């Protein structure tokens, strides 16, 4: 160490110049600078974060779509409402072929005190259904649409209102789906009674 006195700045410079990296340290740092960046850990972390964010965004979008589908009135309900309005003038009662179909599918007949005003096969959004219009004891009307067979995955057990009618979508069995639609004059208890009689499994 130089013991000669020097002006402060010069002394400081000499002090720091005396502190240098060893050859080994220099070599190691120079090697480090030659490592391609794509092999670095941080880059992998960056990719991980990007994937994580993309995953979160995709999951959020999917959740939004599912929630939207769940909350929105299903298209099949709208189609049923339109069909009910279209067939309002038909009064064909319980057709023999329909009664037979009910029996084949193991659905009990409509209780006698509720007259079946109309029965027919129809298509709702390309799904074959059997449509009944049942009159209330004093007032109101109930529409039942049975779909026998596989159903799309986006049909959930759900309920709501469409215009002046209440509706319910019920997965009765793996291969049987029921759409219930009734006017506000129809008593809720009567609807439940009819359903319980026709489909006792709903009571379970």
């Amino acid at each position, binding site marked *: *160490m*130089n*013991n*000669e*006195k*020097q*002006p*402060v*700045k010069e*002394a*400081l*410079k*000499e*002090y*720091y110049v*005396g*502190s*240098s*990296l060893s050859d080994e*340290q*220099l070599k*190691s*740092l*120079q090697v*480090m*600078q*030659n*490592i391609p*960046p794509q092999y*670095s*850990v*941080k*880059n992998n972390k960056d990719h991980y974060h990007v994937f994580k964010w993309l995953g979160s965004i995709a999951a959020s979008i999917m959740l939004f779509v599912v929630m939207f589908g769940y909350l929105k009135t299903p298209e099949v309900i709208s189609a049923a409402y339109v069909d009910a309005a279209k067939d309002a003038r038909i009064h064909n009662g319980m057709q023999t072929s329909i009664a037979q179909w009910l029996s084949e599918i193991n659905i009990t007949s409509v209780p006698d005190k509720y007259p079946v005003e109309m029965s027919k096969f129809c298509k709702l959004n390309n799904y074959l259904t059997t449509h009944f219009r049942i009159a209330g004891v004093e007032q109101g009307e109930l529409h039942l649409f049975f779909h026998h067979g596989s159903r799309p995955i986006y049909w959930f057990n759900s309920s709501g209102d469409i215009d002046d009618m209440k509706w319910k979508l019920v997965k009765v069995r793996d291969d049987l789906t029921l759409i219930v639609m009734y006017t506000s004059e129809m008593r809720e208890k009567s609807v439940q009674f009819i359903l319980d009689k026709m489909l006792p499994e709903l009571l379970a």
Partner: protein
Amino acid sequence: MFDKDELNGLYRYALSLSKHEDSAYDLLQSALEKWCKNSTLSVEKPLAYLKTIIRNLYIDIERRNKIIPMVSIETSDVSCIESIDDVSLEDILMNQQEVQQLLDSLNTEDNELLYLWAVEEYTADEISKIYNKPRGTILSSIHRLKKRIRKHAESVDLATEDYKR
């Protein structure tokens, strides 16, 4: 890619912060590692950028160890701007042992400032850009630093005289 002289310059800067050779090397290594991983960044002044990385790394480490005396450079005792020429250092002489003692007696911020100002010969303007502080604050800090150096030199001289007697 940084050459030998640049790497040594960065090492000395790290040394001005950490005061320990091993820690200075670790700081430089970590900073260089960060730099290499972000090599896609287009930086106008790579050396200044690397110094900032070193400084931030040092502050992070010391905060974790909770030993850094984080005295704000803008505290009231330094915020008044005085003329630097009031305190000249040209008449003060030091040997290497005294330099070592001086550096040991200064805190991290003063050491860093002294290195930038005396060794790298940065102007107050340049230092103010590094610290992101007003130029006047840096001038005050340099002024205070000079006072401390003078005080330190005087105390060393007194001690030497006492020893000679």
